């Protein structure tokens, strides 16, 4: 422990070599809690669709901190830390519900749906004795409020006053991809939770890495949901922390598929399904996009795999574990057939899905491997090239992984190689 964080942390200025300490060092993990999860970043909380009615609330997370996201009686969305202003007890005790005020179980302090302190039992004492000091001012003892903004029904929160408006935080290259999905009202079809024995950032690396998608996942490759020979693009915002990996089933030549997969048994022409009806679902869009994986810094993934749409919230649970919290979506205007198609294709994703279960295994394998390494040993992230971190029109690339580490490094205030000189 105690690796030097202020100088010499990154051996390569272009994030092409990543020290394994990022996945194993408890000091860095503690620093993330302050700098990423309490710093000037927007953290995904939930969907508007989950708290549509006045009084509805859900309990979500910013990092490991539990946060209550509440629709007030007036119709606003507010959020506060799920910890009582008196002596810190967990205040809201169910993960979702409807309430226009919240009373703490311990000493019955009562808070409004905006987190203001309304009542303190025995404030003036009992039989003229005891009670709170005369100058106790309830207005100064509300719950810890969290700034909230939403974009197209995605609700985000931040502890920091310095976080720029969400609209700008997402930026002009990310917003259109959100619009593509969220311009129509969505409905929640269900949730999945997957507890992966790995550092949370390994999942961000995974979903920013189109290189693995055509090599680990036979299903992607063999059934044409995703192949690097399809038309693909990696786009990043200015900070390089958000990214979009987009794959469309166009411009693919069989000869390229054959040569790309020569000697690799993940593309199997002899592999067929006895019941292929999983694939027999009408596309939701005409754009031939089969796979769109977006990440929003620090810890949200949202996207499309075939006909499935979901948010995946990466919830850290200590250095070596995270919960991947999936919200599995349909559209309000889906007819019965479209909904059935999405339920069928749930077989691709989630903890048991043909594709996503393998990402759980990948996380486990990497954490287990890097735990055996010295903290200053490094991964090699150079697919797609070294140097400048720019958008690329290829899927044979790890450039978005480098983008994540660049943004992470800046957010964490970790010195870069160049700055030591």
């Amino acid at each position: 422990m105690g690796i030097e964080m202020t100088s010499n942390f990154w051996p390569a200025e272009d994030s092409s070599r990543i020290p394994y300490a990022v996945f194993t060092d408890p000091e860095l993990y503690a620093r993330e809690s302050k700098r990423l999860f309490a710093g000037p970043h927007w953290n995904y909380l939930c969907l508007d669709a989950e708290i549509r009615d006045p009084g509805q609330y859900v309990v979500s997370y910013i990092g490991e901190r539990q946060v209550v996201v509440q629709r007030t009686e007036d119709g606003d969305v507010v959020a506060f830390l799920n910890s009582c202003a008196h002596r810190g007890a967990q205040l809201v005790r169910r993960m979702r519900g409807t309430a226009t005020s919240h009373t703490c179980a311990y000493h019955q302090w009562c808070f409004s749906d905006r987190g203001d302190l309304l009542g303190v039992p025995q404030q003036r004492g009992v039989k003229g004795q005891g009670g709170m000091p005369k100058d106790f001012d309830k207005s100064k003892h509300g719950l810890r409020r969290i700034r909230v903004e939403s974009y197209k029904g995605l609700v985000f929160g931040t502890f920091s006053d310095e976080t720029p408006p969400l609209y700008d935080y997402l930026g002009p290259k990310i917003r259109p991809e959100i619009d593509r999905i969220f311009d129509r009202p969505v409905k929640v079809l269900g949730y999945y939770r997957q507890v992966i024995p790995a550092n949370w950032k390994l999942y961000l690396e995974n979903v920013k890495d189109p290189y693995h998608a055509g090599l680990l996942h036979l299903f992607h490759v063999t059934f044409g949901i995703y192949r690097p020979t399809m038309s693909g693009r990696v786009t990043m915002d200015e900070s390089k922390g958000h990214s979009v990996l987009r794959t469309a089933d166009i411009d693919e030549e069989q000869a390229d598929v054959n040569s790309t997969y020569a000697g690799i048994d993940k593309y199997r022409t002899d592999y067929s399904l006895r019941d292929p009806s999983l694939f027999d679902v009408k596309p939701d869009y005409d754009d031939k996009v089969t796979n769109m994986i977006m990440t929003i810094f620090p810890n949200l993934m949202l996207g499309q795999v075939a006909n499935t749409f979901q948010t995946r919230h990466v919830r850290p649970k200590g250095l070596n574990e995270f919960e991947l919290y999936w919200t599995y979506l349909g559209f309000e205007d889906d007819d019965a057939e479209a909904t059935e198609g999405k339920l069928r294709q749930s077989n691709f994703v989630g903890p048991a899905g043909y594709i996503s279960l393998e990402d759980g295994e990948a996380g486990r394998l990497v954490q287990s491997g890097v735990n055996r390494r010295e903290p200053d040993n490094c991964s090699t992230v150079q697919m797609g090239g070294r140097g400048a971190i720019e958008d690329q029109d290829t899927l044979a690339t790890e450039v978005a992984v480098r983008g994540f580490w660049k943004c992470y490094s800046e957010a964490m205030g970790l010195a870069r190689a160049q700055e030591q000189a």
Partner: protein
Amino acid sequence: MMNAVCDTSSPVQDLLERYVDCLDEDRLEEWPELFLENGLYKILSRENEAMGLPAPLVYYYSRGMMEDRVTALRDALTYEFVYSRHLITNTRISARDDIIEASSNFVIFHTCEEGRSKTYAVGRYRDVIVETDDGPKFKKRTVILDTFAVQNLIAAPL
């Protein structure tokens, strides 16, 4: 010397136990055979079930899909090797006309290659079973998964 053992289990009880045996003894190929050709196998998280949300963890509506899962487990998917052990309790079986309904609680333990066991999943099976010429088969098995914070992943059927 005893050379005959009295089999006290009913054919339905036998189906429930064969299900467990084929999974725990790595005879996955036998698992689809316990279902009707158009049988249904579904895993639902208890959380979704409680909220009335339809998204399943696994949703196979034909024996072919179950066979596809077995083939994928054998040759295609990347997942951790484990031994499994199911314990089944509180089995209830009731029959009305030709339809048999059954339900039972389960616990599944996983043991890794280095011999450490852990509780992997807890839940309840809800079954609809029908008699066929080939003995009773599942028309429907719904797995209500209490351990809906899935421990990493679900590879083999529960």
